[in-house]
């Protein structure tokens, strides 16, 4: 009985894991960071050349 419950719980975890989008959130955050870093770098260059 306990084994069955444990199996169901494991299956549930597996299904949740497949549906997880945590990595997507982090990846999109990395994209945003690249954009901000590149923008700030060129803005810094502009300021130093004023």
């Amino acid at each position: 009985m306990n084994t069955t419950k444990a199996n169901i719980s494991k299956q549930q975890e597996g299904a949740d894991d497949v549906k997880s989008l945590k990595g997507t959130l982090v990846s999109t955050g990395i994209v945003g960071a690249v954009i901000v870093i590149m923008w700030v770098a060129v803005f810094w260059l502009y300021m130093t050349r004023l």
Partner: protein
Amino acid sequence: MEQAIQSTLREKANRALGVNLKDAKLSKAYLSVSFITLLVGGILGLLQGLERSGLLELPAWLNYYQVLTAHGILLILIFTSTFTIGYLYAGVSHTLGGLLPKVRKMAWTGFVLMLIGVALVVITIVANEASVLYTFYPPLAASPVFYIGLVFVVLGIWSCCFGVFINYNHWRKNHRGEVTPLLAFFAMGVFVLWFFGSLGVTTEVLTLIPWSLGWKETINVMVSRTLFWSFGHTLVNIWYIVATSAWYVVVPKIIGGRVFSDKLARLVVVLLVILNIPGGFHHQIIDPGISESVKFLHVFMSISIAFPSLMTAFAMFAVFERAGRKLGGKGLLGWFKKLPWGDVRFLAPMVAMIAFIPAGAGGIVNTSNQMNQVIHNTLWVVGHFHLTVGTSVVLTFFGICYWLIPYLAKRKLTPQMNKLGVIQTIIWTVGMILMSGSQHLVGLLGDPRRTAFTTYGDHNTALSWVPYEYVMGIGATLLLIGVIIQVYAVFNMMFFAPKGETEFPIGEPEDDALPTPIWMERWGLWIVLMLMVVAMAYVVPVVDFIVNAPPGSPPIKTW
């Protein structure tokens, strides 16, 4: 009712029998022209790259600006247009149950018109009568034949635009209450934007013809530049929608995943159609005679494209994460390793998507007023262009070839061809990192674009650019190797690969996906909104340019 039954029967027959041979012939014709153009344009690109690096001196009968014009027109206009039509017509045929006979005729008419146009344009460039760069706006003046050739190209594209509109509406009439297939929706977005986006440049070209013939002494340069960039800016985003159509619809199927959200994909298309055209002034941000408020409006509209772009980034990462986890990927980013990196049909568009991250960031730099002052007339812009179009768009096009051409030719993608495709993708990526990377860097040091090689009398600043220019030349060499491999692969798959059936990969929605609301199909509303936004951005400045016109310019030939 009878028509609806016939239509459904045709769709079933289409699915059962595979590709419609008449439609396949049309797409293969467009794709053949596309890749022949790529080969010629690629060879010219290498000549240009080596000359610009100081590694090659062109013969007296061929000047740098001639090569630059031909390279730009052939690749930016002809290669991309013919590929887009070949690919999307195949997509429309597959998803909407085949092309209507009159639509097929319209596409063939477009094909002939485009070929006549290309011939006229190429003849004038070869005759050194049209070294006006690929942007071809005044005061530089080409032979009238060059502009007439461009009119033929535009008419050819319009013929294809109306063909898709007819086929799309025919399907909708026979499928009341149904949402169109996602790939057809993307095609509709592309052709709507193409038609309305090209109205401005067509007006410009029609005014350039009497000016170049000498019937009109001068021309209003500000109006011409504005009309050109209303199209130039839009064209970039037309390519972008074509590329994202494959990312959203095809890539999920190839990697064994599902479409993340049909609704989100359609919203991205609608946003790109509505927001796109009014961004032209970010290309003219240092032009005089345009008020700051109008420039700000265009900058805002250009940056607004970042919104659907980040939606696309999220949606694609979600497709990858879910597919990767199904394949056993664990942890926060472990799913990344599980993706099919050895499959060129995935690898090429994936590299294209990764390239879009710095390309998009560079685009935001370009459209920011102060930062544009740093990079405006430099090789940075050329590097940006090769990253956006040359990598994000073109690598997606290359990836599409490895399933589309076998599908059209009723042949198979062999493991050897897949391997060659992976090698080609790697060569292209390395070549573009070297060329585009060095162009970005040397642009920040002030190396100008649209200028043949010069050391400005051995000035120290100009000499400091030379090492970067050498790297640019090496990158250009690798890129031509990539072009040759790709062209070989395309024609091999079209005529010599083993016979067999290849699937047209169309991703399916998640099992628990909610149905897409039918109001997303209200194209009349999207077009009205687009025209309102266009009017908001262009009516005031264009009227101002005409009422308070600067002195007109006579035709100028600098070569």
